[in-house]
């Protein structure tokens, strides 16, 4: 069972190596002459006005929160979907109730304007 996952672990290691190897090669083969102008952040030619880590739009947080709700729902749906032919009717319609609640929540978000990007 679990040993099936061992090749995946090795594959991830190889993937990390394939990411690091070109970086190391590039560092070895390429020139390395840093100066203050070259190392300044890019901002269309002039010096950067301020730190880039300024406040950004709160809607990005909203999208992230909505994503967590819906992704959790996907996680609940997965085991239900796989045993669709084997489960009891209670389980089948139980998920129907769950989907209905979620649908109501989705309509509420929509009406509240949480999905609007002007």
């Amino acid at each position: 069972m679990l040993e099936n996952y061992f090749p995946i672990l090795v594959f991830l290691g190889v993937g990390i190596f394939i990411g690091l190897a070109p970086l190391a090669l590039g560092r070895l083969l390429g020139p390395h002459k840093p100066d203050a102008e070259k190392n300044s952040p890019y901002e269309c030619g002039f010096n950067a006005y301020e730190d880039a880590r300024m406040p950004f739009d709160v809607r990005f947080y909203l999208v992230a929160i909505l994503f967590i709700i819906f992704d959790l729902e996907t996680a609940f749906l997965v085991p239900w979907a796989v045993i669709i032919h084997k489960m009891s009717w209670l389980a089948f319609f139980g998920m129907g109730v769950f989907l209905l609640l979620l649908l109501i929540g989705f309509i509420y978000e929509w009406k509240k304007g949480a999905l609007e990007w002007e």
Partner: protein
Amino acid sequence: MNLSQAIIELIWIVLGIIAIIVPVMIGVLAFTYAERKVLAFMHVRIGPNRVGPFGFFQPLADAIKLLHKEIIIPAVADKFIFILAPVLSIAPALAAWAVIPFAQGWVLANINAGILYVLAMTSFGAYGILLSGWASNSKYALFGSLRSAAQMVAYEIAMGFALIGVMLAAGSLNLSQIVLAQSGGIWHWYWLPLLPLFVVYLISGVSETNRAPFDVAEGESEIVAGYHVEYGGMAFGVFFLAEYSNMLLISALVSLFFLGGWLSPLQGIPGLETWFAWVPGVIWFLIKIIFFSFLYLWLRATFPRYRYDQIMRLGWKVLIPITLIWIVVVAVAARFNLPPWW
């Protein structure tokens, strides 16, 4: 199991990984060449034609050029995360290939939770992009990565829901079993019974890989190059490799989930089926991957870039309702064994 056996097994696993990664990398190189040629022909241009016959060695020349460019690390950047980000974006893009069945039994890790693993790996790519934008400490990079992260999470919901439909139809999370559940000819592949989910998956796949017409994360005409504006040389090259292997991966996944993977399209047609019985399954799989890869380029040449609010509207207000409705339809059809498919 003693030590020498374990080492031998490890060597076999590494050989298997090499047997997957080398064709993927060749595919990526061929894809970058194909992209420039196809786009050129669609624009009635010639495209690269200087390096080798028909410019065929252009990708190799590009790789050598990138290797000899300086990797600039901005002074205000978070150096460790700045280096980590490209690695974080390519490692999952390659590792996802571990569970892809290339033909009957040709799979490195035949795990039961294949779909979940693939979903995890494709969404892991968001970390690479998000961290690169944050670590660069540049405004354009931060905007690009924020846009990309919000876009990816929005389309990932639609993608996950579309896959729920595939699970309902196949009754399994194992990719090989999903393909086998589609056997019986082209009309039994899931593109037809799950047509809306197929379209949704295709669109969200293009959006997940940040490709045109959803490439606002890079948007060269508004935010220069987005999340990789501060990356140069091979640090950019690694992002580039990750993006193209992700596109190949999405093409492979669409073929597996909706177009019957390695199954022959001639199954069930008398005469033709036996004539083409000698064609190995991996060839059919390759043809399907190439078709969807070509679709990526076709989309890029055809459609202008979407506005960001249009992208979010499409993701939240169109794709998610469609998938929600179709999950209910598929669930009822599967439960009651409705003809013609269940």
